[in-house]
């Protein structure tokens, strides 16, 4: 298979050969000519103003407030609605669980019907990733937007790269096999201890 964006037949061929896993697929038409439509899942994290004046990403001490304490968990059934309030970062998981081939990464974008409402997302998915994809969405407009859980919301382009030596699990992967949205683990970055110690010695 040549490198570059994968098209429909190539995607289907990867699914058939079990190199690409995508589940559950409610409608075969989700697989389009050069992308796959992904749906909004059932679990959400809504950011809220916490007790602390800021979110601390510089420390993971047991005494410091966790990042997740700034998020409220919520669940909806497929078909139920939720609101995206202006400028409230919201995390959700895709309904589909995906496992990418070792040499394919994914680029996510909003379906144009939703980006036209003033919503933005930003996510790239590493080759070999497995799990539901956690997506951060922000409503940049000034009117709340109602969305239905389970709706086709995103489109994902799969891009094959040249290397065959990629191994997603060669590093500890903090987000592997996630099925619910996970708040940022920025404070679990192993380099933080070096950065924090730079000026103390």
């Amino acid at each position: 298979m040549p490198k570059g964006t994968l098209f429909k037949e190539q995607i289907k061929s990867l699914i058939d050969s079990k190199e690409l896993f995508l589940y559950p697929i409610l409608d075969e038409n989700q697989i389009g000519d050069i992308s796959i439509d992904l749906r909004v899942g059932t679990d959400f994290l809504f950011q809220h103003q916490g007790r602390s004046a800021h979110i601390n990403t510089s420390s993971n001490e047991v005494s410091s407030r966790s990042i997740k304490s700034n998020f409220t968990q919520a669940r909806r059934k497929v078909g139920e609605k939720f609101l995206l309030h202006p400028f409230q970062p919201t995390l959700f998981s895709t309904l589909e669980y995906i496992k990418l081939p070792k040499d394919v990464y994914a680029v996510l974008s909003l379906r144009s019907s939703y980006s036209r409402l003033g919503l933005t997302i930003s996510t790239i998915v590493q080759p070999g990733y497995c799990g539901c994809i956690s997506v951060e969405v922000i409503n940049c407009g000034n009117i709340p937007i109602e969305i239905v859980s389970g709706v086709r919301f995103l489109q994902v382009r799969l891009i094959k790269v040249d290397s065959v030596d990629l191994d997603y699990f060669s590093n500890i992967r903090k987000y592997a096999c996630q099925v619910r949205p996970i708040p940022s683990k920025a404070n679990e970055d192993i380099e933080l201890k070096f950065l924090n110690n730079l000026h103390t010695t």
Partner: protein
Amino acid sequence: MSLNLLINQIEEQFSSSRSNVYSDKKREKHFLNIYEVFSTIKELSKSGSISIPELPTFKQILQYIISDLQYLDSSTLNVIPFEIVSCLELALKDWIDDDNLILSTHLSNDYNDFYFLPNPNREYFNKINSFLSTKSIIKISYRLIKISLPKLLCRDYLSTVALYHELGHFIDFEYNISNRVMLKKHPSFPPTPALVQKFNHLQEYFADLFAAQYISDASNQYLEDRMIADIVSDSHPKTSERIGVVAKFINNENLEIVNDFNEVLTSLGKQLKIRFEEKDSNTSNFYNFIPEVIENDEQLHYIYKTGWSIWKNTVNPSFLGIPERQKYQMLNNLIEKSISSYFLLKNWNNITK
């Protein structure tokens, strides 16, 4: 005796629960139903229409309502352990097809709180409704099956297998199964402490066998994992003996205790039998870090056994090098996604076909 304090306490509870969004319509209807009953009783109390001899009965009904409210509070969509409850509801249907039953869970702060609350039972429920009828008060339509589990473990699918056992206790109570077996063997039951202990043990064995029908020995795996000492108590047989009975049952060996239960169950049109479809865990999708694609209810229940097999497997290379805590989280996530996708596809296919 007065109802005032209790009425105010319940009012407070309703006030905080009124914004709950329940996981299904039945729970919502039940909430509104018991609110209507409560409101009527409150009005009767206010107007002095409750006579002194009736007070204890009204108090019992109010206590029934507040207990239901507490369980409903743990049944909102945000907190209910939806996946395991959905599996249990399927198992329940095999035994009782009653749309007026609601399987409800209470999330306890106690790590050891896995239990089924046997009372108030069906008889009590009917008694309450008869009384309400005599007072021209609307009946309570739904009856809750009350099962408690530790809040900490509500997304731990290795541990929530214990809920199949708890559901087994409900079925036992509902049909008086252990009681009937005891009466057959010991017509004078229950006269002695030894027989009471035997009865208690029989109830545990039934719940174990009930669970094993669906999840093979997954419940035993959890039992063994929790065991501190393999000792017999008045309430429970030795863990090793419980494990032995289940092992023989799933191997289809002839067991006197299973025969005894089945003799009683046959008269009810029921039977203890294997209700799972075995899948070789060595070829499980979980080793490739993807959910199982479940095709039927029998495979669905077996997912818990697969989870346990993989958790205990320390030689398969897939999870080697992955921190144990991450393996624990990954397994729970994979089980959850396998179950939720099964139910989603089932519902979706029903709607779109």
